[in-house]
């Protein structure tokens, strides 16, 4: 390990596009570490060993990556070794290294973080993943084909992970994707400036190289049903995500200029409306754009609006910044870019012009009272605090619910109160042979949580199919 050095108190800074420049383009904001930066950051790691009654980084990782070990390899300049260790557990590291909420997972348990800034685990993961992508991805050893077939429905993070793990175990896996491009929310939802599509494409390519077949343009529940698939496959994994936009349910929500976050982001990300008219799909952006909501999706929309040319982009949220579900890093970047936060504000009505376009939003001021069932303090309206806000585009980003298409078309598939498919700890549904995981079982959560569920499901499918034969 060489002679003892004084530990850096802060993470090696991440090179970034400056805010004034980046709001004029859709290129990635965080540019990634160089090899030197990565080695220097890796040196901050204390190489903690697991200890009874004490959590370390690994305990915070939903897929259980051996974090101290891969960081050790980076420190030694062995990037190849580092990526091998990550990929034992994580099939999509270039994605996780960009969008994981590390501060609430691995980095939250970092011992160094108790005194200084935690080790930049996410940044290091991203570095080695990108390093490998640039050199050409190696395909790991696979179990020999076992003659069993598994269908995976949906090619988002849950589906890709389940498919990759099952392929490694020797299964013949086919993914069915409803849209024309695989990746699910990674493609239609998360913007280019946060997760470049070439990265998603490269990770999807890796899954294909493992032998997974991906069939696009297949809407399961319409083009084929789960019952059809059961005739052909030994098991099915459903990872169709939370594709159903939630609405405020207030007057004027169907006015022109009011988008769901899904529509706004799908037009821009999947359909590349920011390149209209080179690409055929248009998007309309006004001068004053209000995004309703306080999650990562809301931040993505508000920042996308700036890049599309909005003069003022607002986040309108009914609680305070402290209760926002968005990652601190995303809130910070939105602020740097000039997004204006209107907190403790709740829209109650949209007002349109004579042609049916939204022109104003009536809001009430809120205050926080006692905590609700989620532990966050409940916002209540302040009587007589109503005011009007001029807006010409509104994006409703208050969450998504599980996609109802498969539950609706699959008899006996049990669902919960919000339409989520009910599963046990092994991701098993109420129907034999059918497993589910990701946002379809939880409502909208994180990419890494979906991947964790995909992993558990792959393991459970393997147990089920190998035990049965």
């Amino acid at each position, binding site marked *: 390990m060489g002679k003892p050095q004084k530990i850096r108190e802060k993470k090696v800074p991440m090179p970034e596009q400056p805010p004034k420049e980046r709001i004029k383009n859709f290129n990635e904001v965080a540019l990634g570490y160089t090899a030197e930066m990565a080695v220097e950051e890796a040196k901050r790691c204390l190489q903690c060993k697991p200890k009874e009654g004490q959590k370390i980084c690994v305990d915070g990782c939903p897929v259980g990556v051996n974090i101290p070990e891969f960081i050790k390899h980076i420190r030694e300049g062995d990037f190849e070794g580092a990526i091998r260790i990550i990929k034992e557990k994580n099939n999509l590291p270039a994605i996780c290294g960009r969008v994981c909420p590390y501060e609430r997972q691995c980095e939250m348990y970092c011992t160094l973080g108790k005194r200084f800034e935690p080790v930049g685990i996410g940044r290091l993961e991203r570095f080695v993943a990108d390093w490998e992508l640039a050199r050409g991805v190696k395909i790991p050893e696979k179990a020999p084909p076992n003659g069993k077939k598994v269908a995976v429905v949906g090619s988002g993070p849950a589906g890709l992970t389940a498919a990759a793990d099952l392929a490694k175990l020797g299964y013949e896996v086919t993914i069915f994707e409803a*849209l024309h491009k695989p990746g699910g929310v990674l493609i239609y939802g998360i913007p280019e400036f946060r997760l470049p599509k070439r990265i998603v494409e490269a990770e999807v390519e890796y899954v294909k190289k493992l032998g997974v077949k991906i069939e696009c*343009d297949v809407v399961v529940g319409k083009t084929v049903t789960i019952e059809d698939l059961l005739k052909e496959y030994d098991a099915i994994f459903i990872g169709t995500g939370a594709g159903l936009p939630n609405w405020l349910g207030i007057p004027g929500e169907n006015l022109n200029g009011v988008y769901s976050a899904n529509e706004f982001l*799908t037009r821009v990300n999947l359909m590349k409306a920011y390149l209209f008219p080179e*690409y055929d799909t248009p998007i*309309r952006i006004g001068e004053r754009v209000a995004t309703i909501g306080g999650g990562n999706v809301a931040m993505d929309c508000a920042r996308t609006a700036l890049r599309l040319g909005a003069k003022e982009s607002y986040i309108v949220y009914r609680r305070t910044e402290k209760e926002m579900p968005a990652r601190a890093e995303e809130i910070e970047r939105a602020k740097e870019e000039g997004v204006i936060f209107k907190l403790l504000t709740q829209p109650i009505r949209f007002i349109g012009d004579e042609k049916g376009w939204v022109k104003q939003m009536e809001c009430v001021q809120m205050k926080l009272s006692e905590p609700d069932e989620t532990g966050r303090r409940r916002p209540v309206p302040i009587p007589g605090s109503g005011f009007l806000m001029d807006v010409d585009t509104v994006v409703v980003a208050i969450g998504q619910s599980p996609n109802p298409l498969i539950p609706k078309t699959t008899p006996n598939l049990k669902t919960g109160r919000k339409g989520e498919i009910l599963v046990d700890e092994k991701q098993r549904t109420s129907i034999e042979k059918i497993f589910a995981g990701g946002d379809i079982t939880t409502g909208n959560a994180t990419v890494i949580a979906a991947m964790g569920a995909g992993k558990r499901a792959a393991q459970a499918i393997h147990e089920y199919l190998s035990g049965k034969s």
Partner: protein
Amino acid sequence: MYKIVSKKDLASNVKMFKVYAPRVAAKAKPGQFIILRLHEKGERIPLTITDWSKEEGTVTIVVLEAGKTTKELASMKEGDYILNFVGPLGKPAEVKYYGTVAFVGGGVGIALIYPEVRAFKEAGNKIITIIGARTKDLLIFEDELSKLSDELYVATDDDSKGHHGFVSDILKKLLEEGKHIDLVIAVGPVIMMKVISDLTRPYGIKTIVSLNPIMVDGTGMCGSCRVTVGGETKFVCVDGPEFDGHLVDFDNLIARNRRYLEEEKIALERFLSHG
């Protein structure tokens, strides 16, 4: 990739394509639609399924040249490939015996009522069909519909065939004469469907319309196609495309269909000048 198996000119600006899409053909039912994307830079547009053959694995669509994408599609030839073709989407029509069913088809909507007329006929209904277009050349599927219908009425805007005027005039006359009708199914321009729904309301005749809003994914994900029906927000792609015409807020739909008029013009002009 989905191969265009055959192409037929139905009128100067209306083309019919048979596309090889066996999975869609295997599941298609009257009233459903597909979404296609022509190429890597293309938009996703919905088109109603006109016909299908499980045996051939083909799906037939009829396209009226209007904007950039429909003009581009119309320029494609037999043997060409459409990049994406997904479906069948939406809920199928509720085909059953009602008694006498009056179908009203306007413009390219005529092609869309064809599979429903066939299915409702097979279900034992008496069929009255009223079709209309700007001029007689645009009266597509007239022969096919004539064979399936117990009564067929024709209207043209320019008096080149049949009644000089609108399809709604014909339905109005039939209703005023006391013709017994149990169900009306109207497919065509939004304004036509609105007029027909207003016409049947005082008679209390159930009226089904097939809506054609702007869609993106077509699977219930984005809400671009949302309309107000009976005071509730519905997604046409998954809750429709057919709704009770007496409950649809047509003015909201008309306004929503005009969202991208300017962009549609830009795209079309660019296509016509660049090809």
